[in-house]
C-alpha cells in the first residue's frame, strides 16, 4: 500500500531566486525617483549655473536685453505674497485646527467640516485661481494686485495648515491637558500655555511646508493676473517715497501702492521665460529655477531639522 502522492513541493530554491529577482526590481524602480531628482538638478545647474550672478539677483526682468535680465522684481513679489499668505493663512488655519481638535463636539457639523477640509485639500490650485479671480480681483475690486494674489494663496494653503496642525495637536498627550485642567486652568489657558507650546514644532513644520507649496505655485497667480514682465517691485522704491512725502505719509502711500500694484512672482517669471522661443531665456528660466529651488530646499531642510530635533527630544 503506497501513500497518496504528496502535494508538498516547496521548490525553495526557485522561490528564493524569484524573491531575489523581485528585490532587484524593487530596488531598480526605487532608484528611478532618485535618478529623476538628480537629473532635474543637474539639468538646472548645467543650464542655469552660468546666469547666476549678483546682477541676476538685483536686476529687473528685461525682454529687450536678456543679457542683463534678473529676478529682483520676482523675488520681491514672492516675498510680498508670502508675507500676506502667512498673515492670512496661519491664524485662520491654526485657529480652525484648534477648534476641531480641542473644542469640536462630535456632531454632524464637525463631521461636515472635516469632510470639507479634506476635499478642499484636493481641489486643484487652478480652481482656487478662478475663485480669487472672481472674488478678490473682480467682486472686491482689488484688481490684479499682490494683495489678491496673497489672499488666494492663503486660501490654497489653509487646508494644508489645518491638517498639519491637527496632527501636531493630536500628538500632544492628553495627560498634559488633564493635569492643567485639574489644577483649575480654563480650557483656553490649558491650550495657550501647555498644548500649543508642546505642539509648536509640529505646527511650525506644517506651516513651513505649506508655505513652500505656496512659493512654488504659479497657476493661481497667473489667473489672478500676475504677468511675467513687471519693471518695478510692488510700490516702487520705499526710499524715494519716504524722501518725497516724509516718513509716515511716504510709508502709507508706499504700502497702499504696493498692495494694489501689478506684480510678478518667481514661478510666474520662470513660466514666462520658458515660454520664450529664444534659447537665452531658457538659461534665465534655469537660473530662476535655481534660486527657487535653493529657497525651497532650505525651507524643507529647516522643516526636516525641526522634526528630527523634536523626535530626539521626545525619546529622551
Amino acid at each position, binding site marked *: 500500500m503506497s501513500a497518496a502522492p504528496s502535494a508538498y513541493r516547496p521548490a525553495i530554491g526557485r*522561490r528564493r531566486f524569484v524573491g531575489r529577482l523581485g528585490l532587484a526590481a524593487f530596488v531598480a524602480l526605487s532608484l528611478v*525617483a532618485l535618478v529623476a531628482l538628480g537629473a532635474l538638478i543637474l*539639468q538646472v545647474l548645467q543650464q542655469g549655473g552660468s546666469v547666476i550672478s549678483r546682477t541676476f539677483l538685483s536686476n529687473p526682468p528685461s525682454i529687450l536685453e536678456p543679457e542683463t535680465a534678473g529676478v529682483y522684481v520676482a523675488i520681491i513679489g514672492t516675498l510680498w505674497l508670502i508675507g500676506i499668505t502667512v498673515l492670512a493663512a496661519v491664524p*485662520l488655519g491654526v485657529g480652525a485646527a484648534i477648534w476641531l481638535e480641542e473644542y469640536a463636539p462630535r456632531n454632524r457639523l464637525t463631521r461636515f467640516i472635516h469632510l470639507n477640509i479634506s476635499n*478642499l485639500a484636493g481641489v*486643484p490650485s487652478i480652481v*482656487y485661481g*478662478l475663485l480669487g479671480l472672481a472674488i478678490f480681483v473682480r467682486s472686491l475690486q482689488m484688481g490684479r494686485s499682490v494683495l489678491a494674489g496673497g489672499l488666494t494663496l492663503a486660501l490654497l494653503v489653509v487646508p494644508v495648515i489645518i491638517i498639519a496642525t491637527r496632527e501636531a495637536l493630536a500628538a500632544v498627550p492628553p495627560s498634559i491637558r488633564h493635569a492643567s485642567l485639574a489644577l483649575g486652568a480654563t480650557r*483656553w489657558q490649558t491650550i495657550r500655555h501647555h498644548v500649543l507650546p508642546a505642539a509648536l514644532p509640529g505646527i511650525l513644520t506644517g506651516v513651513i511646508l505649506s508655505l513652500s507649496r505656496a512659493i512654488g505655485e504659479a497657476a493661481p497667480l497667473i489667473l489672478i493676473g500676475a504677468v511675467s514682465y513687471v519693471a518695478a517691485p510692488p510700490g516702487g522704491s520705499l526710499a524715494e517715497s519716504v524722501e518725497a512725502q516724509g516718513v509716515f505719509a511716504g510709508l502709507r502711500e508706499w504700502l497702499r501702492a504696493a498692495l494694489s500694484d501689478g506684480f510678478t512672482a518667481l514661478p510666474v517669471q520662470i513660466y514666462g521665460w520658458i515660454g520664450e522661443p529664444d534659447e537665452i531665456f531658457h538659461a534665465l*528660466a534655469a537660473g530662476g529655477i535655481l534660486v527657487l529651488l535653493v529657497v525651497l530646499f532650505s525651507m524643507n531642510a529647516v522643516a526636516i531639522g525641526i522634526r528630527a530635533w523634536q523626535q530626539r527630544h521626545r525619546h529622551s
Partner: protein
Amino acid sequence: MRRLGLRLRERGIELSLLACALVTILVTAGIIFVLLDECFGLTPGKVGFFQAVSISEFLTGTEWKPMIEPRSFGVLPLVSGTLMVAFGALLVALPIGLATSIFLSEYAPPWLRQIFKPVLELLAGVPTVVYGYFALTFITPYLIRGIFPDVQIFNALSAAVVVGIMIVPTVCSLCDDAFRAVPRSLREAAYGLAATKLEVSTRVVLPAALSGVIAAVLLAFSRAIGETMAVALAAGMTPHLSLNPLTSIQTMTGYIVQVVGGDAPAGSLEYQTIFAVGLSLFAMTFIVNVVAQRIFARFREAYE
C-alpha cells in the same frame, strides 16, 4: 465679576476659533458659487455660459474652438487630453511608487528609509513649473526623441511622464502608510509558513493593504487631473480629440491658463469658458476625491 470676565473671554475665544473653522466651509461655498454663477448666471442680470451654449453641445461636442469663427464649444478634446495625461502619469507612477513603498516598508533598513523619505519630500516640493521646464528641456529632447526621433517638442507623452514623476511621492507616502497599517501578525504568520519575503510582500501585505493602495492611486489620479503648469508647458496648446500621445494636445487646466494669459475681456464668452471648464475640472476631481476618501475611511476602520 472677574469670573464672569474670564468666562466671557473663554466663550469669545471659542467662538472665534469656530469662526476660523467655518471659513473653510465658506471657501467651498465660494468656489461652487463662483463656478455656477459664471456657468448658469445665478446673480440677477448675469448671463451664464450655458445660456449661450447648450449643455449638450458642451458635453458631447468633439471640437473645441472657442476663439476662432465658426466657434464650437465641445469640451471632449480637453477632457480626453486631460485623461490621457492622467492615465499615462499613473502608468509611470504606479510601478515606481508601489515598488518604492514596498521596498521602503518591507525591505529597507531604517537608515535607508531615513535617506529615502527626505528625497521623496524634496521631489514632492519641487514646483510644477519646474517639472514643466524639465519636460521641455530634458524629457522630450533626450528621452522621448531617443526613441521617437521626430516627435513634436510639445507632446502628451512628455507631460504624462513628468506628471508621473511628480505624483510618485504622493503614491509612495500614502501606500507606505497603508503597508505600515497592516498588522505584523499577518506577516509573521506567512513567514511561519516558510513564505519568502517577496511572497509576504506581494501576496499577504499588498492584498491586505489593497484598499489603501487603491485610495492612494485615486488621490494621485485626481492630482494628475488638476495639475496645471507642467502640463501646460509640456503638452502644448492644440486641443484635438486623439489618443496618440506623441502629438500636441491640450488639457482642461492648460486651456484655462492659456486663455487667462491672453486677454479675454471679463464677461465675454471666452472669459466664461474658463469657468465652464473649471466647473468640469472641479466636478471630476471632486468625485475622484470623495470616492478615494470613502475607500480610505473603510480601510482605516478595518485595522483599528
